[in-house]
C-alpha cells in the first residue's frame, strides 16, 4: 500500500510512463532477487535454515509488532496514506524536470525506490516462508495475489488506500512473523515442541494475547502521562 501511494503520486504529478517504468524495473529486480536466492536457500540443511530463518523472522516480526503496538496504544502517530500522498505529490510538483532515456527521471527513481524498498520486505517474507515450507513458487503466488489485490483496490478507489486499517494489518503481519519466527527458531535451535506442529496455533495465541496485553498496558500508561 505504501508503494502504491508513492506510485500514484508520481503517476499523477510526473506522468504515468515514468512511474510505471520505475515500478516495472523494481518488480523485475525483486523477481531477480527471489529467483537468485530461492534455489540457493533450498540446499541449506533444514535445521540450519529454520534457525537462521526463525531468527530473521523474529527480529523482523518484532519490528513490525513493536511499531504496530506503539501506534495502537498512541505512543506513535498512525501512518496516514492521505498525508503521505499529499506530501509526495507536492514534492513531485516542486521537483525539476529532467528527462533520461525518454522517461522523467524523478518519477522513475522515486517509483523505483518506493516499490523496491517496500517490495524487499515482501521478497524477504516470500523467501523465508517459501524456503522453510519447501515451496517458494506457492509463496510467490501468494505475494503476487496480494499485490494484484492492492493494485485493483487502488484502481477502483482511484487514490491512496487511506481507509484500509493499515495498522491492524501491520499488527497481524507482526503477530504472524513473530509466531513463525518463534516456532522455527526454537526448532532450529534443537527444541521439540510439545505436540509438534499442533503447538503452532498455541504459539500464535500466546503472541496475540501478549501483544494485545501490551497495547492495553501501554494505553493505560499513556493516559497517566500528562499532555
Amino acid at each position: 500500500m505504501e508503494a502504491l501511494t508513492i506510485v500514484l503520486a508520481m503517476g499523477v504529478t510526473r506522468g504515468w510512463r515514468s512511474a510505471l517504468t520505475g515500478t516495472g524495473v523494481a518488480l523485475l529486480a525483486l523477481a531477480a532477487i527471489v529467483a537468485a536466492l530461492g534455489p540457493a536457500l533450498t540446499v541449506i540443511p533444514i535445521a540450519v535454515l529454520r534457525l537462521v530463518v526463525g531468527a530473521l523472522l523474529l527480529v523482523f516480526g518484532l519490528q513490525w509488532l513493536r511499531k504496530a503496538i506503539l501506534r495502537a496504544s498512541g505512543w506513535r502517530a498512525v501512518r496516514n496514506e492521505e498525508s503521505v500522498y499529499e506530501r509526495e505529490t507536492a514534492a513531485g510538483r516542486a521537483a525539476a524536470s529532467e528527462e533520461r532515456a525518454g522517461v522523467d527521471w524523478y518519477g522513475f527513481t522515486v517509483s523505483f525506490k518506493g516499490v523496491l524498498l517496500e517490495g524487499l520486505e515482501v521478497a524477504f517474507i516470500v523467501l523465508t516462508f517459501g524456503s522453510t515450507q519447501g515451496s517458494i513458487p506457492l509463496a510467490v503466488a501468494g505475494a503476487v495475489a496480494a499485490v494484484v489485490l492492492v493494485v485493483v483496490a487502488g484502481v477502483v478507489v482511484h487514490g491512496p488506500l487511506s481507509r484500509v486499517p493499515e495498522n491492524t494489518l501491520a499488527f497481524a503481519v507482526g503477530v504472524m512473523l513473530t509466531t513463525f519466527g518463534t516456532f522455527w527458531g526454537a526448532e532450529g535451535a534443537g527444541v521439540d515442541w510439545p505436540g509438534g506442529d499442533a503447538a503452532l496455533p498455541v504459539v500464535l495465541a500466546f503472541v496475540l494475547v501478549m501483544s494485545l496485553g501490551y497495547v492495553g498496558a501501554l494505553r493505560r500508561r499513556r493516559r497517566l502521562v500528562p499532555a
Partner: protein
Amino acid sequence: MKRFGLFWWDFIVGDDWRVAAGIALALGLTALLATTWTTAWIVLPLAVAAVLWLSLLRVAS
C-alpha cells in the same frame, strides 16, 4: 558502501538493536539447553515477551 551497510542494518535490525541482540542470546540459550532439557521450548516465547516489553518500555518511558 557505508549507506548500503546502514540500509541493511536498518532493514533487518530496525530501530532497536537490543531486540536483535536479545533474540540472538535467547536462541543461543535455547540451543544450549535443548540438549539436556526437554522443556527448553519455553525459553524463546518468554524471551520474545521480555525483549518486546523492554523495547516498548524504552519508548513509553
